[in-house]
């Protein structure tokens, strides 16, 4: 039981990625689900229409990377919520509530609590200083070539690991939900993503996110309402029945084994909170709005939707204990309490079928597919911008590339990333890829976040400090994950883990901060003096937004 829950925990660490859902599903392929396929095709048709429209509006680099800064706070809030609420959130956390009860709710709070912090300490400065990528901010007053290269490398590490986790998850999920072949599913996701991003850039990606977020909120809420009405919308009634039925009994609503160890609990809390604040595709969303006002509103709306949805899916999981847990239709061989058909992650889908029939099931399945598509599109765009804007335009061409050239490179980069995602998705099909999400979050929290926050808040940060901090963070996060049980034992087959915890953040983050501090403090070169002086102007711009790149539309 403990193994199972910790596997689930690892899997959904991020709340964003869908890492290896069919691990316990036995890879069973379901009968072709026509309701789901038709609804998904409607979604594709709609988003293709939007992509066609967006393509006509995507002319400059600003259009391509940030939709010309013309997205409103409300739209961006929905899109951020879309980025943040993935198939893992819907399926994984419902499954976790179903099996582990209250623990799932603790996770949800950890996913949520990063948002207010991002709003209070980062949103305004991100918008005021950044243009296309977060490397614009870290390299603002530091050495463009070196610092951008570092930021682009750690962004790409995050993006690629995240993409693999999403692709493998997508293939397995689609196999389960739609009855499509794994490889076909991978190609469908990869190709659609390339079309959205190369043609429509950020405008299309944003609208795909918005539509998908609305579908997800609608589908989830409807399922909950239909389920909750069976308990007269009474939590007392729901909990009484759930505790009577669940094998945890009265412990259902008590903190369980997931966070029993304080170090793991705190490391997880740090990783989720600050990992979110270091994910390149989330940070990029702050540049799509016109000014700091709209950036703040984005977080207000995003956190409202995310918080609401977490509460919805937690209750969905509890309702499923009674509605799905007693229905032989959803168990293999009709044995209640046995193996759930399609594995634990199918609980939300079974609940939809139980309360809303095939129509609702099809709708939710289409939503899950759309969700994956939207998240990979956001990731691909973030990865492509690191290649084209940071590495190509700024480092290789030293700012001399024309917009046309830069956009062309970013389109090629998107296609490259799409093909890479397809190939890696197929290669990693049978592997336990749960660690990749942890790795992506670890790198985001330990490499991107420390350098980013120091560059905005600490005058003393120099190029040397940023490089040591950034590379120190990437390397230590990667090594901690490599030596932890999830890779060293589960993937590489060694006997015992060299690093006793599964969560790198508590250890890798201090390394990044300490390195950045020591190597900045000891940096007395002439360049470092100029860099510290340049902080003054950067500081005024960060505070007032004067000189910030505005909306081009």
């Amino acid at each position, binding site marked *: 039981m403990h193994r199972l829950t910790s596997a689930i925990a690892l899997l959904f660490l991020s709340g964003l990625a869908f890492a290896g859902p069919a691990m316990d599903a036995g890879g069973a392929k379901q009968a072709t689900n026509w309701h789901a396929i038709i609804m998904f095709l409607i979604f594709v048709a709609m988003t293709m229409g939007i992509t066609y429209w967006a393509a006509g509006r995507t002319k400059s680099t600003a259009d391509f990377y940030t939709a010309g800064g013309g997205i409103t706070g409300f739209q961006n809030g929905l899109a951020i919520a879309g980025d943040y609420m993935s198939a893992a959130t819907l399926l994984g956390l419902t499954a976790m509530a179903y099996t582990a009860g209250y623990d799932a709710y603790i996770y949800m*709070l950890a996913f949520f609590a990063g948002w207010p912090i991002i709003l209070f300490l980062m949103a305004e400065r991100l918008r005021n200083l950044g243009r296309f990528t977060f490397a614009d901010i870290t390299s603002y007053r530091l050495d463009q070539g070196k610092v951008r290269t570092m930021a682009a490398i750690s962004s790409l590490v995050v993006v690629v690991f995240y993409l693999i986790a999403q692709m493998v998850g997508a293939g397995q999920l689609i196999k389960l939900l739609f009855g499509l072949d794994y490889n076909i599913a991978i190609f469908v996701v990869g190709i659609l993503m390339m079309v959205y991003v190369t043609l429509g850039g950020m405008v299309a990606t944003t609208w795909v996110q918005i539509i998908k977020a609305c579908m997800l909120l609608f589908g989830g809420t409807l399922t909950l309402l239909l389920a909750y009405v069976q308990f007269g919308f009474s939590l007392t009634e729901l909990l009484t029945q759930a505790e009577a039925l669940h094998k945890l009994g*009265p412990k259902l609503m008590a903190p369980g084994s997931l966070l029993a160890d304080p170090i793991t609990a705190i490391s997880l809390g740090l990783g989720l909170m600050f990992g979110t604040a270091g994910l390149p595709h989330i940070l990029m969303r702050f540049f799509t709005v016109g000014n700091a006002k709209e950036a703040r509103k984005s977080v207000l709306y995003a956190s*409202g939707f995310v918080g609401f949805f977490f509460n919805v899916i937690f209750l969905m999981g509890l309702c499923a204990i009674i509605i799905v847990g007693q229905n032989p239709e959803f168990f293999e061989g009709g044995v209640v309490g046995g193996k759930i058909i399609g594995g634990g992650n199918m609980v939300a889908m079974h609940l939809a079928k139980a309360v809303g029939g095939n129509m609702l099931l099809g709708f939710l399945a289409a939503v899950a597919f759309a969700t994956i598509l939207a998240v990979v599109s956001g990731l691909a765009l973030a990865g492509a911008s690191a290649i084209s804007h940071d590495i190509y335009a700024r480092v290789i061409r030293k700012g001399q590339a024309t917009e046309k050239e830069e956009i062309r490179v970013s389109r090629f980069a998107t296609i490259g990333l799409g093909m890479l995602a397809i190939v890696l998705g197929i290669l990693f099909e049978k592997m336990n890829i749960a660690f990749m999400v942890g790795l992506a979050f670890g790198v985001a929290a330990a490499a991107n976040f420390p350098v980013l926050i120091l560059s905005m808040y600490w005058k003393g940060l120099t190029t040397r400090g940023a490089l040591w901090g950034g590379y120190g963070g990437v390397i230590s996060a990667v090594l901690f994950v490599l030596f932890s049980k999830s890779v060293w034992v589960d993937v590489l087959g060694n006997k015992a883990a060299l690093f006793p915890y599964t969560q790198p953040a508590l250890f890798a983050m201090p390394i990044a901060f300490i390195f950045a501090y020591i190597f900045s403090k000891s940096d007395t070169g002439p360049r470092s003096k100029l860099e510290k002086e340049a902080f003054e102007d950067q500081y005024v711009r960060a505070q*007032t937004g004067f000189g910030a790149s505005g909306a081009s539309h």
Partner: protein
Amino acid sequence: MSSVMYERMRVNPKFQKLVQERGRFAWTLSAIVLILFYGFFMLVAFNPGLLAQKISEGSMWPIGYTIELCLFVFFWLLTVVYVRKANGEFDDLTADLIKDAQKEKL
């Protein structure tokens, strides 16, 4: 030229006021979130039994669930409070500041 503008803004007392007040406000709210959040995680780690109890005799509402539900709502309300104040009062001050700096140019 923008460096000149930045210099003008920096010496304007309004800038100091903006930075200090908004900074204090943002850090206070952050501290509230961090203390409540990590305080709650400490409870989870060190006193899970308490969270499992019901809020009162005969009630089905567990203490842990109730606290967390309140935290969800409270954290979100804090974002509302911050956005209202930052987008209103502080942005007005910022606009003033930029206007002052631009006037000096003439």
